[in-house]
């Protein structure tokens, strides 16, 4: 049985597109007919099919749901969230996850963990002194140091194991 599609459309006003005043007026009229009472330019609105047909008789949408618009909206919302005070993971969380996943327990404990710990301390010290750019630079630099160390550590391990085997022979 075919799933019944919802009767309506996602509408979004894109300020980068040039819309005529008449089209804009029609758009806002459509928005007013939706369930959303508070209207914002960067929000995606759900508009019933009947309302759209009433306002735009010649309108033939390619897709009923514009996923790109929804995604764009989500991204712009997360970008706006970044400017407000909110809870985030400490720096190095991703590095920690990657190192924990790819490295052995020993290399994680001996190499990755101290690098991340030192980086976090330096990062928070910089933040305490209000040096945001310095903190970001520390984060970037120590990410590189970690990947460099893990690469070198792996290489040293391989050479060391080969040397031990040669000595046994």
């Amino acid at each position, binding site marked *: 049985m075919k799933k019944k599609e919802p009767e309506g459309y996602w509408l979004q006003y894109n300020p980068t597109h040039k819309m005529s005043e008449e089209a804009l007026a029609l758009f806002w009229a459509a928005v007013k007919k939706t369930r959303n009472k508070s209207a914002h330019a960067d929000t995606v609105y759900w508009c019933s099919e009947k309302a759209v047909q009433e306002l735009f008789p010649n309108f033939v949408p390619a897709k009923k749901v514009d996923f790109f618009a929804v995604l764009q909206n989500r991204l712009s919302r997360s970008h706006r969230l970044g400017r407000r005070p909110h809870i985030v993971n*400490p720096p*190095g969380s991703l590095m*920690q996850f990657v190192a924990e996943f790819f490295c052995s327990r*020993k*290399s994680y404990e*001996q*190499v990755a*963990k*101290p*690098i*991340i*710990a*030192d980086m*976090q*301390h*330096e*990062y*928070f010290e910089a933040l305490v002194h209000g040096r945001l750019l310095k903190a970001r630079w520390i984060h970037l*630099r*120590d990410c*590189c*140091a970690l990947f*460099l*160390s893990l690469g*070198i*550590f792996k290489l*040293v391990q391989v050479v060391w194991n080969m040397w031990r085997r040669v000595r046994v022979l």
Partner: protein
Amino acid sequence: MKRMDEGPPHLSRKEALIMEILLERPAAELYGLELVRNSRKRLKRGTVYVTLGRLEDKGFIESREEIQPNMPGMPRRLYKVTGYGQRVYELLQQAREARHLTPAQLAGAI
């Protein structure tokens, strides 16, 4: 963990440098970045932790996690030279110095 079954103890140039920095204040415990700062650009961030790990494997240094309840983030790892490491470093330094002595100087020293 000590690896006693792998021949006489040996220190590479970087390992010796780390031991030297740690032995400047034997009672103090230093963390990785402090070692990099104290080395006056002779140690790099990318290599210091690998070398420290190797020294720890050999039993020349020991480490512990710093406990600071008021600090955010993961606990830092502090490094300290062990008695065994100190003795090995001193013996290797003596051997290095003896290599540059003439036989007469060496006889005099003995």
